[in-house]
């Protein structure tokens, strides 16, 4: 766990909420849900050691492995 990254993302998330919340008070509930869900995903992801972790990018890379081998020649 990288505390530095996690805490800086947490500060950024707090700033975003402070900045955005007054503007979106009258928006539909769906907007607020999406806003907080995306922020939450961002916060959760920041807990991991992302550069050395498998993820969508790595999955796609292994999906296209034959093409990668063709390009390496």
């Amino acid at each position, binding site marked *: 766990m990288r505390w530095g*990254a996690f805490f800086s*993302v947490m500060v*950024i*998330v707090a700033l*975003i909420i402070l*900045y*955005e919340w007054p*503007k*979106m008070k009258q*928006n*539909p509930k*769906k*907007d*607020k849900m*999406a*806003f907080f869900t*995306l*922020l939450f*995903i*961002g916060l959760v*992801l*920041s807990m991991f050691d*992302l*550069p*050395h*972790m*498998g*993820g*969508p*990018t*790595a999955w*796609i*890379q292994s999906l*296209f492995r034959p*093409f*990668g*081998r063709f*390009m*390496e020649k």
Partner: protein
Amino acid sequence: MEKGKISSLQMAIMMYPAIVATAILGVPSITAKYAKTDLWLSPILASFLGYATVYIAYKLHKHYPKETVIQFSEHIMGRFAGKILGFLFCFFYIQVAGLIVREYAEFVVDSFLVNTPISVIMGSIIFLCALTVYGGLEVLGRAAQVFFPIFILAIFFFSIFLGPDFEWKNIFPILGNGVMPPIKGGIVPGGWFTEFFLISFLLPFLADQKKGMKYGMMTVFVVTMTLVLINLIVLFVLGPATSFKVYPLMSVARYISLADFFEHLESFIMAVWIVGAFIKLSVFYYAAALSTAQWLNLSNYRPIVWPIGILILEFSFWSLPNTMGLERYLVGTFPLFALLIQTIIPLFLLMMASIRKRKRQASQ
């Protein structure tokens, strides 16, 4: 969702840096690895993908004039399959925006701000682009309009100032090893050309929709010419050494010397290039924010602009431990993945849309 209107010329001006900015940076050396001295032919071959993509995007736009790809894929494929496809597009644009940020930051850290932490550079450019995207499509179009002349003039002067260093015979032998090397070299630029599918997010908001196709095709042509010009400059100055440089354009810029007085013009070139990268990232960021908002049926895309910025920042690190990992992804995965998402799937959608239309007309 988006109330702003842009002109088709503004669309062209936005799309030009959106393709060229990163394509002139590292791509010439990747192309040179495969095509050797024929690297200037590769963008011409790759441009056919660009023309095809613009044609497909425009035809789809004709079927559903007021909707972006996220909305009409639901109409074409049905609700469930359309949602899956829409998710694919959202994911693709967020991920590509992450890759652009990473390329940009790696370049800046590698060549200039050696001691600055990479996350600071990424954070600052994302912050700037988030402000632009938050402003809306019109702001984005105007910003591109302001910066476009600087970008073009820089490339123009760049090619003039390097004139004395040109070694014209570097271009020979033309097609010395047959046509296969330039074709293989065209694969990676081809991935960049498929990014023209972004016009699908801009076409619904054009004030003069009829000109969309014309300006789109024109942009592909101008982009092709620019890439050919840049590749030729790099080839004329560096010759066979092109493939060993990570950022050939930067290495070439160091050769500029005017009257023994103006030296180190590469910092100027970089300043201009950053402007291009800013437009590029903003356009992709806009596409990511708009497509996510439409995918979730939100009333406005503005509330999710900042959260998406955090996701872009995280995607720029995810599974890419170092520069080598990034380059391996850009060469070995990105061209085919981009082709699949941005040309083949839309082609499939277009076929389904026209079959549906014909059926509807037959039943009437």
